[in-house]
């Protein structure tokens, strides 16, 4: 997809000039990630430490996995023209169900995972049905769903609950060299979602519905199907993030999701990754770039022992600047009304 896009853009943007104009938004994200990496390695070196040490790389990648799961799902939901603000509560709920059902027994792992993801899927289904069927905007529908889950959690769980067995905790703790298993699972999910978006009908329909619901409907696309699919997958991925947190913490927690601020952070990562907030355009690959940027920023600021409030300021600046750059690019890459050697000429007899 990315290649098709940049190829298609090559003609109109060549004359518009400008370095940024020639890059796809995904390329910009990774360029920014590269810059952050260079800046980070220099800054970290000044403290006498190595940014590229296996330990630090592992720490950064670990930081990508939880947000990664959620942001991949959020990408789907945003692409289809909706939003999911309930993800962080689903994450908490899944961690509690997972740790609760496991109760420190290895033989319960499978059933716990299945139940946690199943309940997550049901929540996603409910979100999707409310958005597609009742025509409530995703923002409101999932805000409401988030509040419902949050209320349930606050009434029924006063603190951490359950316990994950050692075998399950390994998932969050081991890795292949510096690459944590959890990151590999997250990248596996990303690959499946990318495959779905580009190689299945439902994937194409998710883009179409987000681009223009009426056009999609008039072309025979089942709009609710696309919306519901995106919401279900998003919730399931949020559930996986919850299980991963349970694996790391060893227990389930009713606040682990909301404390992470994953709802807004995942939306920020998606937008940073070049996906249009209005839907219809964007990519999971871009989102992963956005997640990576956040993870590296966090890591650098932790190593430099920067005041945590300043961290948010930095994140905020990055998001705003990134989106401003995209907005500027959209202006530049507007198709030329006329051109020297443009399309019009080809059409004339």
């Amino acid at each position, binding site marked *: 997809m990315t290649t098709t896009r940049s190829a298609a853009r090559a003609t109109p943007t060549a004359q518009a000039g400008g370095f940024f104009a020639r890059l796809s938004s995904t390329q910009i994200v990774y360029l920014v990630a590269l810059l952050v990496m260079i800046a980070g390695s220099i800054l970290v070196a000044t403290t006498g430490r190595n940014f590229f040490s296996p330990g630090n790389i592992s720490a950064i990648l670990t930081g990508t996995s939880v947000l990664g799961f959620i942001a991949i799902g959020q990408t789907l939901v945003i692409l289809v023209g909706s939003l999911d603000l309930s993800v962080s509560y689903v994450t908490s709920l899944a961690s509690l169900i997972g740790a609760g059902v496991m109760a420190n027994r290895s033989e319960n792992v499978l059933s716990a995972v299945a139940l946690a993801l199943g309940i997550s899927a049901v929540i996603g289904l409910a979100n999707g049905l409310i958005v597609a069927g009742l025509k409530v905007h995703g923002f409101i529908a999932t805000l409401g769903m988030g509040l419902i889950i949050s209320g349930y959690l606050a009434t029924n769980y006063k603190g951490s609950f359950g316990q994950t067995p050692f075998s399950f905790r390994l998932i969050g703790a081991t890795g292949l060299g510096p690459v944590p298993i959890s990151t590999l699972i997250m990248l596996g999910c990303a690959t499946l979602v990318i495959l779905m978006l580009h190689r299945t009908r439902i994937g194409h329909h998710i883009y179409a519905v987000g681009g223009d619901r009426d*056009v999609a409907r008039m072309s025979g696309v089942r709009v609710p199907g696309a919306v519901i699919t995106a919401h279900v997958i998003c919730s399931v991925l949020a559930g996986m993030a919850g299980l991963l947190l349970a694996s790391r913490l060893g227990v389930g927690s009713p606040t682990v999701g909301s404390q992470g601020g994953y709802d807004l952070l995942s939306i920020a990562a998606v937008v940073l990754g070049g996906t249009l907030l209005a839907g219809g355009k964007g990519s999971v690959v871009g989102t992963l770039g956005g997640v990576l940027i956040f993870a590296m920023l966090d890591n650098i600021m932790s190593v430099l022992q920067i005041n945590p409030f300043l961290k948010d300021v930095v994140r905020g600046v990055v998001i705003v600047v990134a989106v401003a750059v995209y907005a500027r690019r959209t202006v530049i890459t507007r198709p030329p009304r006329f051109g020297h050697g443009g399309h019009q000429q080809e059409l*004339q007899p």
Partner: protein
Amino acid sequence: MEGIVSSDAAENGQKRDQPVLEVRGLTKSFFGNPVLQDASLTLHPGEVHGVVGENGAGKSTLMKILAGVYQRDSGTVLLRGQSVQFSHPTQAHEAGLSTVFQEFNLLPDRTVAENIYLGREPRKGLLVSRAKMNAATADLLESLGIGSIRPTALARSLSVAEQQIVEIAKAVSYDARIISMDEPTAALSGPEVSLLYGIVQRLSERGTGILYVSHRLREIFDLCQTITVLKDGRIVGTKPAAELDDASLVRMMVGRPISAYFPDKLPAATAAESPAAAAGETAAPTPLLELEGAGNDQLDGIGLRLMPGEIVGVAGLQGSGRTELLHAVFGAAPFNRGSMQMDGRSARPHSPRQAVRQGIALITEDRKAQGLSLNQSLLDNALGVVRAVFPGRTSSVRREVAGSFSSLEVVARDLDQEVQYLSGGNQQKIVLAKWLAVSPRVVLLDEPTRGIDVGAKVAVYRLMRQLAAEGKGVLMVSSELPEVIGMSDRILVMRDGRLAGELPAGSTEEEILRLATGARVPGAAPEDGSTTGGTA
């Protein structure tokens, strides 16, 4: 998708006489207002059937009922003898009836192939096969004689004409036996129209029945064998095109002959009333607007003068920079070099707001996207500019607005009606009223009569004459050459972002086209679609 090969010659031979589509006694009302009453028509294989009528006559409603977008109240629709009732556009597609709607229906960020096969992407096993999809699209475009469009191009990167062609290709790709087209050339100019002609003819040769809705009567006569005229939701008549001419067709459409299609010039207002005349000497009045060597990213070396009381037409192909010129003068995409003067004083507005303050108005090409807030009332729309730029004048203008509505003959329930429920012609009048409310001295018009009916067109022309008589300057961009020729005191022709030349009033379409296309004179290419009476 159906397996029947529509180009099968033998089948066509046998079934030439059996209609592919019969509509009988179709009736439809919205909220108690009948919009279609007892409408009937018959379409044969390979026939191009023109459907004409003023806006609001019920053409689009008829199209939408056939396409399954609206449900009929009563009547029957027979497709190859079988009674059908579609509740969703997909059902119409499956039955072999496709519609190219007036509004563009492409996803800008998807490729041509993805747009065409949306909803039925070709698969290999369970996965979508991009290779198959692109190959099928290339074949389809090739078969329509437009292989120059790449299947992998983003719809966004295509010109308006190419987008329209992709929409038609999409309609064809459903193996359609019947294609209805609603104003397919509304956004096209000269050579692009001839491309569309080619496609329509190819489809007709394959035996596809075509319902062709257009306001451009020349196209109707060029393409159609049969013409059905709708008026006020009823069929006035169906006749072979050969038995009609411009004049008789217009009479059927409006129910009366249009005597003065392009109104004569009005006598200029007295010198005292004309500010420019009062200020300047009689020998050399100051131009209202003067550009010299002006340019920006899309325009270069623009020099022009607009005198008080003058109507200057701007012609050129789609994409020649006509709209960009108006946007530059209006400060929406400002000039960044050269000089621009208003009344002899330097003025280069850097935003529409500054332009409005200097007395410039722009009636945009796309009234729905740039001219109106569709879900606001007539009154709110008409007061939009005054409120934004001259809030102090709002209350006095509010009283005048009703007057300007009645002088423009706006047909609406009341001032609180939302403009989205008005016909195209009435919407355009609201846009005009909105700009008249700020009493501009220079009026920029971009395709002022696109997609509006004959009656509304005449109202727009009268208004232009009246503005000129009041000493205002009018700069009009239009793709309809008869309109440019019929209304302009002078004609500027643009090509590739520059002024290719200036022609006096009374120039021919051929002279304009020669300038617009440069050295390459498309000998047989049809000029821009003529509307009523332009060449009668």
